[in-house]
């Protein structure tokens, strides 16, 4: 494959490119979806192709093809160069790539059991056994199970002599139960919403999730939600479970930290960021308890790699340290705009056909030193929430409102009543500044996100957020209806 890469790079140089890189991706995906005792969908995807990115006359160009035949090289490279020349007609600033060194390396994610070697019958049986348990609960009318396995070979080569091959295995599994009754619909999922838990692991992930062991509890909770009421809207102390907190980190810290958003490159679509350049390293983002780390070396994370799609080596750095805002997520193209010589290694594309853009890597809230039980016990009037249901945040990433799958009212240090559609809202820095307790390492878990959308054309990226439950003081909870 690197011969193919060399041909692409040589031709790009011949056409006048001052920089060029190529990614070849060969990806296999196996996915199962069960519903109410049936295998609703089973599919296998074998997709391959290459994408070429060039700088020519101070303009960027990118072109891709799903055909890996060498006859496609000339046409695709020509298109990339022509696009770059067109881009250069509307370009004010020089393109300055950071001085990151090129690497020649191989990297592979770790796993114990190749999920593609596990017989199909084992996978289906696992999901159908869970399905049966879920539907034993009479009000559960819809039981859904998911499994997905991905294997990807990614070749990266650049005109700066980078040559990198990375191989990744990702596994994921989970289920959800939906109870229907009283003109209401309530859903609980396990281990996470939207397809379950995903990690860079093999079949051993599925075995470790205790899927079957939790099915009865999940079904019972779902049924009970049909008879629960919504929490009345009021200001309370809010305790957020790890899964929901992973979403909070993602939306209110991850996206506003992407430097392309900060600079206005996403203004027309996803929006910009309240962490403007004048606030860089000059913002009290959260309370002194809040430490958020970006880490593409996190074991088994979905945003873990040897090298990003600029060929920059994986790294770990603070985004927020003791409540102070520290670092943006950057790539080689934009690092210079904040006077940094090196990229933070956050350049990622979701496929060969997508151009790399700044994306979150794994982003985690570091654990505190409280026991979860002590956080509950220390709360007089509060609400505990978990399970991702609905999320929304404004285009500056300030005003957010999230609704969870399940909640419990807390009175005098005890969870006293289950509530449905528990909703909370806030303004990002005020919210994180109100964080006064974070559970310790024993409660900290990585949560895989598989549906992060960004960019035009749209790209869907995976990353992991580690979090333990945490408490936030005086948060507006419940749905406000005037």
């Amino acid at each position, binding site marked *: 494959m690197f011969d193919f890469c060399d041909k692409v790079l040589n031709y790009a140089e011949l056409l006048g490119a001052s920089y060029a890189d190529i990614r070849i991706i060969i990806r296999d995906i196996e996915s199962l979806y069960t519903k109410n005792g049936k295998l609703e969908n089973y599919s296998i995807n*074998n997709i391959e192709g290459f994408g070429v990115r060039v700088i020519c006359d101070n303009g960027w160009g990118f072109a891709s093809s799903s055909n890996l035949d060498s006859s496609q090289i000339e046409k695709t490279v020509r298109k990339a160069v022509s696009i770059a020349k067109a881009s250069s007609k509307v370009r004010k600033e020089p393109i300055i790539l950071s001085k990151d060194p090129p690497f020649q390396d191989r990297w592979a994610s770790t796993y114990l059991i190749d999920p593609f070697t596990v017989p199909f019958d084992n996978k289906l049986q696992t999901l159908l056994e869970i399905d049966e348990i879920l539907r034993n609960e009479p009000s559960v009318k819809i039981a859904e199970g998911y499994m997905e396995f991905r294997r990807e070979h990614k070749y990266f080569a650049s005109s700066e002599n980078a040559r990198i091959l990375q191989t990744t295995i990702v596994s994921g599994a989970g289920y959800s139960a939906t109870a229907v009754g009283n003109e209401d619909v309530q859903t609980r999922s396990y281990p996470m919403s939207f397809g379950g838990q995903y990690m860079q692991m093999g079949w051993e992930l599925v075995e470790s999730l205790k899927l079957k062991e939790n099915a009865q509890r999940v079904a019972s909770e779902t049924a009970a939600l049909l008879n629960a009421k919504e929490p009345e809207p009021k200001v309370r102390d809010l305790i957020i479970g790890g899964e929901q907190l992973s979403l909070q980190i993602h939306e209110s810290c991850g996206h506003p930290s992407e430097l392309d958003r900060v600079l206005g490159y996403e203004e027309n679509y996803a929006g910009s960021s309240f962490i403007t350049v004048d606030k860089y390293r000059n913002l009290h983002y959260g309370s002194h308890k809040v430490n958020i780390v970006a880490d593409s070396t996190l074991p088994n994370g979905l945003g873990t790699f040897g090298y990003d799609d600029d060929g920059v080596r994986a790294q770990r750095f603070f985004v927020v340290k003791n409540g102070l805002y520290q670092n943006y997520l950057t790539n080689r193209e934009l690092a210079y705009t904040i006077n940094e010589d090196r990229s933070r290694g956050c350049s990622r594309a979701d496929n060969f056909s997508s151009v790399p853009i700044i994306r979150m890597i794994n982003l985690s809230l570091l654990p505190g030193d409280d026991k979860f039980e002590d956080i509950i016990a220390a709360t007089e009037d509060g609400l505990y929430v978990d399970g991702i249901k609905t999320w929304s945040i404004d285009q500056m990433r300030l005003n957010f409102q999230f609704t969870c799958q399940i909640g419990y009212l807390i009175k005098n240090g005890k969870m006293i009543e289950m509530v449905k559609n528990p909703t909370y809202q806030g303004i990002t820095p005020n919210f994180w500044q109100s964080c006064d307790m974070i559970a310790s390492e024993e409660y900290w878990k990585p949560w895989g996100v598989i549906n992060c959308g960004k960019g035009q054309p749209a790209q869907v990226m995976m990353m992991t957020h580690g979090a333990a439950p945490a408490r936030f003081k005086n948060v507006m909870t419940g749905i406000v209806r005037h």
Partner: protein
Amino acid sequence: MVDQIAKKVFELSKAEQTEIFFYDGVEALTRFGQNQITQNVESQSQKMSIRMLDKQKTASMEISNFSDKTIKNAVDKLYQILQHQVQDERLQPLPEDLNFKANDTIPESFKKLDENIRAEYVKKALYILNKQSVSGAGICSQSKYNVTHMTSKNYSHTFYDWKFAFSLSAKNEYGITREEFQGTTLDNFNIDKLANKCIDSLNFSKEKDRIEANKYDIIFTPEAFAELIQYLFYFSFSAKEFYEKTSFMAFKKGQQVFSPLLTILNNPHATDSSALYYDFEGSPTKVVKLVDKGYCNNLISNRYFSKLLNIENTGNGLSPTTFDCFPINPEIEGGSRSLEQIIQSSDNALLINRLHYLNIIDPITLTVTGMTRDGVYKIEKGKITTSTNNLRFTESILTALSNIEELSSDRQQCEWFIGFMKVPAVKIKQFNFSSATDF
């Protein structure tokens, strides 16, 4: 080429029935921000999904390499996989005996488009904005694809789609606004007009009033209305959701739920993009009146659910294994006055240009939350007076649509989750805003 590949697949397949969906497309997009092109891409892709159906078992596979060897390996592997599948009596036979190609007459103005013309449009828009000290961000995109659905039972249906879009956000110290053009031809595209409209809107932002969360009478532009109402289309009218009792239609079908001013059709020919003549099961798509003067009378269906519920198959089957069906091309009937006239006749209301990041809290009441963006304007005594800060809304779509006061006569084609819709602007009384933001 597709015919040859399909022939190969069908010859090699040992299954009783086999179908392919072959996608062939090009998508190009120029993105700009901070007054310069920041990203410029073109992606060509071809992929084929193969599905086998045998003894009420099915399995599918997607490939992007069409060499003889890869096709043979894929077909052999898929047949092996098929043997391990479980029987499902709901599976319908593959369609047969049709040869249909939709219109593929691409207008000359579209054919000429390329990266150089896109760059010229961007340059012109930015020139107009920059003259007024306004910065610009946005996209200029073109896409073209076709999908061929063929079965081993002599069925062939090809549909084509192509689209041009220009979206422009304009920003200065007073605020931000956005205008957009979408179409299958560039005949009505005027970049000067688009950029100048942005500047005119920004002029209303010179004065800004702070408002708090409350209930307000509001006027949504067609784009804002489309962003809200797509949740109604996605969650409500499918026979599947009706059967599973996860949509309000399970409890209110046949009743008057909305304002008598509201009539909604699913009309495959209402929009000039994504017009499907046959669904993915090979059934002809039909015009269906989903809401008639506020009465919610009809569902969208496919072969399986039409049999199960004894209703008409409307030809909206999108997945032969999960039995999903959606109204791809909904159309809302307009009123008698233009948006401008509705504004002129409003004493006290908010005009909302766009919505942002909506999400659903409750699929039965269709309670959604989301933000306003790119322009919220106060209307006082028939005139736009100032802009305001942005607001978060949390509101039931059922309630909002029962509170419609007026729909505009002028309608616009807007893209939604899975297709295109045609929608007017709308005036709604007492719309619930749950919080405010500072900008």
